[in-house]
C-alpha cells in the first residue's frame, strides 16, 4: 500500500516536472520572439561593442577571438539561408540541398571574416539607434542605426529583419546604402556562369582558405 502510494506520488511528481519543463520549453521561444527587432539589434550590438572595448584579446586584434565572438554572439541572429538565397539569386533555386548547405557555410565564413575586419577598424565608434517605424504586426522591418565616429561623417547601417519562429533575424545589412548581400549578386552570378554552383562554392572556399586574414 505504502509502496503503491509512493509510486503514485513519484509519478505525479514526474508529471509535474514534465509539465513545468514543457511549459518552459513552450514559453522560452515565445519570450525570445517577443523581443522587438530594434531592441534585439540594440542589445546584441551593445553587447558586442562592450566586448570589443574590454576584451584584451580583441583589442590586440586576435582574429581567432574576434571570429569566435561573432560566431557565438552575432551569427545566431542572422538568417544565413535567406542571405545566401538573396546573394545567389536565380542560381540558388536550381542548387541541390547539399550545394545550398555548402554554399551557406562558405558564405557565412566569408561574411564573418569581412565583419571581423570591419569591427577591428571601427573600435572607437558609438551607435545611434533610430526609432523603429513599423506596424506592430509587421513580420519584415528595417532597423536603422547610425555609427558615429569622432571627426568623421556618420555612417548609416540598416538591418533588414524578418520574424522567424526563433525570434527576429537579420537577412541583410545595408551600410551607407550598400547592401552587403545584394552586393555579392553580380559576383555570384559571374562565378555561376563560369563554373556552375560548384564553381562558386570552390571560389568561396578558396577565398576563405586563402591564409589567415590579418
Amino acid at each position, binding site marked *: 500500500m505504502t509502496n503503491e502510494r509512493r509510486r503514485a506520488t513519484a509519478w505525479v511528481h514526474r508529471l509535474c516536472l514534465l509539465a513545468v519543463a514543457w511549459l518552459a520549453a513552450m514559453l522560452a521561444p515565445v519570450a525570445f520572439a517577443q523581443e522587438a527587432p530594434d531592441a534585439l539589434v540594440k542589445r546584441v550590438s551593445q553587447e558586442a561593442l562592450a566586448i570589443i572595448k574590454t576584451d584584451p584579446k580583441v583589442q590586440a586584434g586576435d582574429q581567432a577571438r574576434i571570429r569566435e565572438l561573432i560566431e557565438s554572439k552575432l551569427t545566431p541572429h542572422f538568417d544565413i539561408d535567406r542571405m545566401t538565397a*538573396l546573394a545567389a539569386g536565380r542560381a540558388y533555386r536550381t542548387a541541390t540541398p547539399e550545394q545550398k548547405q555548402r554554399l551557406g557555410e562558405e558564405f557565412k565564413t*566569408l561574411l564573418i571574416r569581412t565583419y571581423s575586419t570591419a569591427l577591428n*577598424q571601427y573600435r572607437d565608434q558609438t551607435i545611434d539607434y533610430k526609432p523603429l517605424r513599423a506596424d506592430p504586426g509587421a513580420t519584415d522591418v528595417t532597423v536603422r542605426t547610425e555609427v558615429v565616429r569622432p*571627426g568623421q561623417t556618420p555612417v548609416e547601417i540598416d538591418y533588414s529583419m524578418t520574424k522567424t519562429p526563433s525570434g527576429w533575424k537579420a537577412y541583410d545589412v545595408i551600410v*551607407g546604402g550598400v547592401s552587403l548581400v545584394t*552586393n555579392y549578386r553580380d559576383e555570384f552570378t*559571374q562565378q555561376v556562369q563560369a563554373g556552375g554552383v560548384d564553381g562558386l562554392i570552390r571560389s568561396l572556399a578558396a577565398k576563405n582558405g586563402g591564409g589567415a586574414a590579418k
Partner: protein
Amino acid sequence: MRMIRSVFAPLAAVMLVAGCAAAPSRDDPFEPMNRASYRVHEVVDGHFIKPMVQAYVDYTPRLVQQGIHNFFGNIDDFFSFINAALQNKPDKAGHDLGRVITNTGFGLLGLIDVASEAGVPKGNEDFGQTFGVWGIPQGPYLFIPVFGPTTVRDGTGWIVRGYASPIGYIEDIPTRNVLWALNVIDLRASALQAESMVNQAALDPYTFIRRAYLQRRRYLVYDGQPPPAKDDDE
C-alpha cells in the same frame, strides 16, 4: 587651372561620346575597357599613390591630417550648399551655408570644423546627385585610373566641380599645385579603410566596387530613401 583643363577636356570628350553611344540596358557597357583601366589603376595606385598616402597617414600628426581633411571638407560643404540649392532643398542648403560661414570665419579657413562641434549636420550633395535629382540618367559606368569608379553623370559632375573649385583660382602656381596634391592624398587616405574591406570581402574586386559604387550613388540621389530596385529576384 590650365593643367587641370588639359587633363579634363579630353576626358570630358571621351565621357560625352561614351554617354551618347551607350545602350541604357546595362550599367557597364564598357566593361572590357573599364577592366583594363582597373588593371592600370591597380599598378599605378599600388606602386606609387598608395605607398605615398600610407606614409602620409603613418607619419603626419593626426591633428595635421584632421586639419587638412577639414579644410577640403569645407570646400565640399560649399559645393554641397550650391547643389542643395540647385536641388531645391532649402533646409540642407541652409545648414551647408551655415557650416561654410562658421568654419571659414571661426575655424581658421576651415581647418577646424567648429560647425560639427556645434552639431550642424554635414551635407554631402554634389553635382552628380543634382543631375540625378533633375532626372538625368547615370549613363555608363566608368572606371578611371587613379580617379576610381564613376559614371558619365557623376564624372561630368566632377568636371564641373574641377572647373569651379576655389583651389583652381589661386594665383600662386606652387601653392595651387600643393593644394591639389594634398586634396588627392586626403581623398585617397579616407578610402584606405574601405579598400581593405573590399579586399577582404570581394571575390572579384572590380565587380564588387562597381556594385557598391552604383548602390551608394543611387542611395545618395534618393537621400537615403531609394525605391526598391527592379532587379531584385529572390
